[in-house]
């Protein structure tokens, strides 16, 4: 079974790069939504797609990444899902806030595709394996 990943990201370029890398990394099934409302809709309505990991951008139209994170953490159904903040911000406050709200990891988007590949590969290996066990 491919591992399911939900990625909330409003920048189509970022999704293009993500796409390109993820299919080289292994058997993953991922869906993207471009804002918090549609992410929540997907979680609530598409029960057959229960993600094993959620990647959240922070700056999003409507709900921001923190708000989506808080929502996920308050729902018992999703509490156990690893949530990884995935953003270009290296602001200390953003990092602090993310962990306070219960993020499992904070990933700064590297600006080269090679680094992005490494970072994503490490993240998937670590969090998805843990989740399975």
């Amino acid at each position, binding site marked *: 079974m491919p591992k399911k990943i939900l990625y909330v990201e409003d920048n189509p370029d970022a999704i293009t790069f993500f796409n390109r890398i993820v299919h080289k990394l292994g058997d993953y099934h991922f869906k993207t939504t471009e804002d918090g409302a549609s992410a929540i809709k997907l979680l609530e309505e598409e029960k057959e797609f229960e993600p094993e990991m959620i990647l959240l951008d922070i700056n999003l139209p409507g709900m921001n990444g923190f708000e989506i994170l808080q929502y996920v953490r308050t729902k018992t159904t999703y509490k156990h899902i690893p949530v990884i903040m995935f953003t*270009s911000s290296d602001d200390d406050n953003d990092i602090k806030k993310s962990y306070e709200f219960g993020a499992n990891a904070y990933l700064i988007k590297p600006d080269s595709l090679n680094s*992005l590949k490494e970072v994503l590969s490490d993240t998937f290996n670590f969090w998805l394996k843990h989740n399975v066990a």
Partner: protein
Amino acid sequence: MFEEKTNQYMQNQIKLFEQLMKEMEPVEALINKPVNLLSVNSAEGAVFFYENKMYCLGNVPEEKEIKELITWLRTKEPGNFFQTSSLAKEFPEAEKYADIGSGIMIIQIAHDRSEYILWFKPEIKRKVNWAGEKNKEQTKQEDGSVHISPRKSLSKWTEEVKCTSEEWSNTEVSAALKLREDLIQVINKRANEIRKLNDALKAAYEELDTFSFTISHDLRTPLSSIKNYTEIILEDFGKELSPEAHLLFMKVIKGTDKMAGLIKDVLQYSRVGRADIRKIPLDMGKMLTEIKEEVLAPYGDRDIQISIINCPPINGDRTMLMQLFTNLMGNAVKYSPRDPAVIEINGEIKDDFVVYTVEDNGIGIDMKYAGRIFELFRRLDNVKNIEGTGVGLAIAKRIVEKHNGKIWLESKLDHGTKFYIELPVKQG
């Protein structure tokens, strides 16, 4: 005659008020004009203490004497106003300058500050006609029935008026008190205007920081798209590209990297401006050793000696001080291209301050431009060939200023540079 003078004083007092309102600069309005502090009474000398400076008009005692007088007055008179026509009677030291200031009138402008106006009137004997008939009569009255010669009576009177000035008239007192009110009004108005200006300036700075923060943030995403698409072109179509095209795309990537570095620095700079400072006692030895390792990491093949000597603790914001010393130590390494690079970091407690120095044997800074090197984006000619964004020292200065400290340097071209950072030891 008397009435004429009184009217003149009152008119001048109004004129002073007008000058104050117009100039908004008390010294300009009260001292440097034809109608000035000496125009509202018959005093022959006036002193204006304002913003820790002393401004004099006419005949006044020595500065030292005036200061002693004020010290005495502080212990004696807690009020805003004091006047006497025989100062030496109460304050014997004043006898020395009786010819200048036998009579004084003082107004204190603000309780919490040492701001005063003093007027001095000379001893009366210089001013009156000794042989005046009227005076003889007065002496007689005081002496009662005793028969005295005019000459004797004159000497008696001189004795009496010694160290005494002409009285301060009601008009003079009232003009002084009115002036005090006017001055307070103007000073408060001025303070308010300065405060408003300050607030506006602060808001503008904050806006600028927010602006640079947002814009830098927003620039990052498209910039990384440019880079990543270029990478994809090279990866997917590299074989079809001519070597020239390949080279050009590499230059695009290099350019985006440079810009990304600049954006990162500007973000850091505005972040320091926006951030609240959280001071804690910091173990500097530990911090500096960590920074040393980090700074040295990219220079594996070089002979760089960094010695960390004394490291007194600093009360400061951890993130900010990490950044400060990373920038300074990083610069020391970066701008010391000759092996061995010898860098020394040392700290010392001096009274209420801790002074850290970061010294290198690098290319140095032309001290002609020493005042400008902390400006944003400022890079000097002799570092053209060394990569940099011109933000590092601007950040360093901001951090030091956030800690109410000072940063300065000594340098000699081609010999090296020594940076000094002075921070207050006490918290707050």
